């Protein structure tokens, strides 16, 4: 992966406030201006990780929608954000897995729906996944979700074979 776009972006518009930096990154990476992220844009917390619901009674507040679902320009911004926020330090370049799990295999420890991935990033998860909600704002987290959902899962995922 080429990091130069991030670097130039950072060099040109160096700022100290994290949210401003994130906002600039988003606008650097995307041809279209995006809405300014802010902590107040955060949705109500859905602090659960279970996917079995007792009595078929849905949990209130669980229906979040990704405003950028499938938008390739936002996914490209998300790729820049993925390195700028040091996500690659744990999940490796392009999210193929390092000390943190593979994010590009189409499988998800805490659920792979957009809202579930959003919650994992926004609120963090046990075993060391930091909460990025306050640092990124909802817009930044959705941008990352859009990027992660754009990663193509490799073929023959369940089977690893040695033929010789």
């Amino acid at each position, binding site marked *: *992966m080429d*990091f130069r776009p*991030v*670097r130039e972006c*950072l060099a040109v518009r160096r700022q100290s406030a*994290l949210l401003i930096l994130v906002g600039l990154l988003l606008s650097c990476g995307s041809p279209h201006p995006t809405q300014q992220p802010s902590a107040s844009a955060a949705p109500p917390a859905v602090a659960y990780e279970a996917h079995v619901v007792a009595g078929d009674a849905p949990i209130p507040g669980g229906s979040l929608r990704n405003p950028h679902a499938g938008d390739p320009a936002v996914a490209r911004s998300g790729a820049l954000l993925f*390195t*700028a*926020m*040091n*996500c*690659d*330090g*744990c999940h490796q*370049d392009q999210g*193929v*897995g*390092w*000390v*943190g*799990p*593979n994010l590009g*295999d189409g*499988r*998800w*420890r805490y659920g792979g729906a957009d809202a579930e991935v959003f919650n994992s990033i926004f609120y963090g998860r*046990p*075993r*060391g*996944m*930091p909460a990025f909600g306050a*640092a990124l704002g909802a817009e930044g987290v959705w941008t990352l979700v859009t990027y992660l959902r754009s990663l193509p899962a*490799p073929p023959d*995922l*369940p089977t*690893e074979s*040695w033929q010789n």
Partner: protein
Amino acid sequence: MSRMAHIAALAWLAVVPVCATCAQAAGQSTNDAEGQWTMPSKDYAATRFSTLGQINRQNARALHPVWTFSTGVLGGHEGQPLVIGDTMYVVTPWPNVLYAFDLTREGYPLRWKYRPEVSSNAIGVACCDSVNRGAFYADGKIVYNLLDGHTVAVDAHTGREVWKVQIADLGNGETTTMAPLVVHDRVIVGAAGGEFGIYGWVKGLDLASGRTLWSARNLGPDEEMGIRADTFRPPYDRGASLGTESWGNESWRTGGAPVWGWMSYDPELDLIYYGTGNPSPYNAEQRPGDNKWSASVLARKPGDGTLVWAYQFTPHDSWDYDATGAMVLADLTVAGKPLKALVHFDKNGFAYTLDRATGRVVVAQPFAPLNWAQSIDLQSGRPVLNAARQTGVSLGNVKGICPSLEGGVSPASPPAYSPRTHLFYTSTSNMCMDYQVRHARHLKGTPFVGVISPYIAGPGGYLGSFLAWDAASGRKVWENKEQFPNWSGALVTAGDVVFYGTLDGWFKSADARTGEVLSKFKVGSGIVGNPITYRAPDGRQYVAVYAGLGGDWALLAGDTRSDDPSDVRAPAEPTTEIARHTSMGGIVWIFAL
């Protein structure tokens, strides 16, 4: 020096030197010192040499497993058991359970187990798997670090917690994987976090209470590094403020220099020795200068932490060449003269023989394929660099650097030294790398790294080896090449047998003089731990080792993991075959004749 440090130094003077047979003094043991294994590296000199000789080069072919125990934990089982009297102690990776096995009964049932409360967040803050490098026995207590920045002391007899103290800040990227060193009544500890931009340090705790008596940085202002004006004499550097002036842009504040390896101690010189890890971040252009004292060996007084000398193996490290590997103390004859030596196999591929009183380099030769430097200049102590293999953000993707950032040997894999053969024994890793860094931004609680570094096989058609090294002349004596990078520690005995494990799970014994493999057995998982030997209450000699693939291999060989259906990874070059031969595990193995 703070008032507290003054008091600590005075108290130090009153302490009786540590006894060689403390186990008996504590009413613990009928075993003698040579039959036990009371500290991580066997002795203060970190030789991993045992005087036991029942198992020898004539009969070792008959070695076979006699007992196994699943720790119940999957993850890199680095480190080694302890044997005190008739009890064997095992510390697991996170969640850092401590088991005490009764060696007097058939099947070695547990006397007790200790399950500390330890934060699961430490798993994600530890750079490279949730490893633990072992415990230290002193004054009737088993002392070890929990991954989440705590040190505990547990009563060796009852399993009751004597004290538990916080020493490191998980929220700031610090985890604690190293084995403590206890000297007199000081517990010396440090923290990992070279991938999180920590401000590296060591501390001296009170063995009785766990209270911090002194704390000293490995970088930064002199007064924070334990430098007293007239006591610090590095062999090749002069002047004050080296720990700040060798870091452009005040980069020392997030400069790393962590402590996660091994420590040794010379009672005559009253010096502890330990290595520091990489400077942060990986883009060296963000930290102009030598970056002292990262990637270095430091010699301190254990009583109050005073820094006496320091030597930097890799100035301005641009390859993640941590120097946290063991510092083995041996009395050698070099060029006809006696030398009180410190021998160190560095990640950078050179094996160093230093004068341990002064830190001067006497011998430095490659023990593994390398190309980042031509040689080490003995006059200046500095590497003669290869201009084509330097890295930095302005240099783009630099190809074909040897060794890889896994090192010519992993610091997690300590060597052994036999005073009988006068040889050192070490695992090696033979991989090279491409190295492309970016400008890294320090964001507390997240990694401060910024590198893409795929590995390739090193030259010669093998990926690792186990070798014997003459540190007086700086030459290899024999070498057993292995299919995969070799990641276990070494053990050598008075039977002239050397023991090691392979990444694909073979536990081997070999003739210490020739390298001829005498026995091998395929254990349940790859070996990244360190074999030990002891005499059990039945009078027989045993050899114990952990099987449990992990450490860096939890990252590098994610396809060896089968317990998480939500994390499926492709095999990685150049060890694409490793998952064919082993998977994660966590088993204690014991071998006997």
